[in-house]
């Protein structure tokens, strides 16, 4: 099983713990960042194969801004990102579909995420980006 290094960005410790356990059981290593600033610092330091990014961190759109910064940074812009968020459930006023070509992420997954779907999408997104080598 190919192992990827995944940076999980989420301020919810319970979600982080359960998702970390799931990804580790699939053979991946997981780094955890609670804030956008921490995520950018860890991404520059550790160069993960994939970033799982929540949107609603300390501010409800913080994840979107973090994603913009990732795409601006020449060191980080090629790292694939899957956005995992409950923003559409928690903010019903915001109904702009992520598929409408404005979100520069590889995938959007709505919380709660089916574990099989998450594992499958992680592998698919990283392989699509051409990072098929194990560590």
């Amino acid at each position, binding site marked *: 099983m190919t192992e990827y290094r995944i940076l999980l960005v989420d301020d919810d410790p319970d979600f982080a713990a359960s998702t970390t356990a799931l990804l580790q059981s699939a053979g991946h290593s997981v780094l955890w960042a609670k804030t956008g600033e921490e995520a950018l610092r860890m991404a520059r330091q550790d160069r993960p194969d994939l970033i799982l990014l929540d949107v609603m961190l300390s501010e409800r*759109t913080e994840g979107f801004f973090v994603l*913009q910064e990732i795409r601006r940074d020449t060191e980080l812009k090629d790292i694939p990102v899957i956005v995992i968020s409950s923003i559409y459930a928690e903010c019903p006023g915001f109904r702009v579909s992520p598929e409408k070509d404005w979100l520069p992420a590889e995938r959007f997954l709505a919380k709660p995420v089916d574990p099989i779907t998450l594992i499958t999408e992680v592998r698919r997104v990283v392989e699509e980006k051409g990072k098929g080598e194990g560590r």
Partner: protein
Amino acid sequence: MKFVKMKKEELDFFVSVLSAFGEVHAPIRRGQQVVIGTPARWSDVCLEYARTTLPPKKYVLPPREVMFTFDGAKGYQDLLNEARKPIVLFGVHSYDIYSLNILDTVFLGGSYKDPYYSTRRENLAVIGIDFQPDEHHFAYSTDTDFVDHGFDLFFHDIGDFYLVRVGTSRGDDMANKSGCLFMAPEEKDFKEFKRRSAQRRAAYVTHVDLRDLPEILEMEYRSHIWEEIGERCLSCGTCSFVCPTCYCYDVRDECSIGDRCGQRSRYWDSCLYRTHALVAGGENFRKDRASRIKFRYYHKQRGFVAEYGRPSCVGCGRCIVACPAKIDIVSVIMAVRGEKDAHGNKDFGSKSL
């Protein structure tokens, strides 16, 4: 013009979606100042600001710009690719939008269109927002407190909502991309817009009459006032750099002699610099500071009027705030008119700083 409205509390969602149109730049607080930059989060964005340190002109006429490289083997290669990066400027005041329109007449008008400026301008989306004038704004006097073109969207504060003017098809695309965030305005929204606009106009404390200023400047060409201001001026060029419509630039070729290659760059210049009017052969048409600072006032308030029909000053107040010698353009104009300034003086310095 098309009008829509949006709940103020959903502005962060809208700015998130704007990324589909380019890299979003907005006013952000940096220490005591507000600059235009890329916000790390929504709370970094500062929409209630008096003025940014540098104006938006830096996006269409950068302080330093490599125009092209040249090489004996490869010839000329322009660097327009970088200028094609789409950028969205969010939260721009009306006088700054007006200033971009003025720069357009300089760089895009006439028979020669500046390709570097035009490429950046085409890829720059502009979203305007209302502002509350402070003691240094005189945009009402320069007719720049309201702008009718040069923006893709313009947000007007009407309490819990923004009334939004859609200025271009790109602005319309932005509103459509955000879908449910925008809705049709009602009669009460227009009423509130008019009420607040009147309030904002009444809030200006600094007024300066510019209508006959070109002629008065003609009369005062040999006035002692220019010598007095020249003594005070440091020729630092700060006023030029913070001015949204100053556009002088210097062009330099930087060569690598051994490799027979190099690049041509342009840099912001200032008519206050000693070398600005220095020509080949050593003649300097404006050797002293008094003549240089007089030139600046004459260019902005008389020469530009003759060529383009209006003064290039947009009443933003940046030069007043930034001048280390505390020279206040409003006080200077009033002194030239023989009038007292707001402090009851015939001096031309800003006492409030």
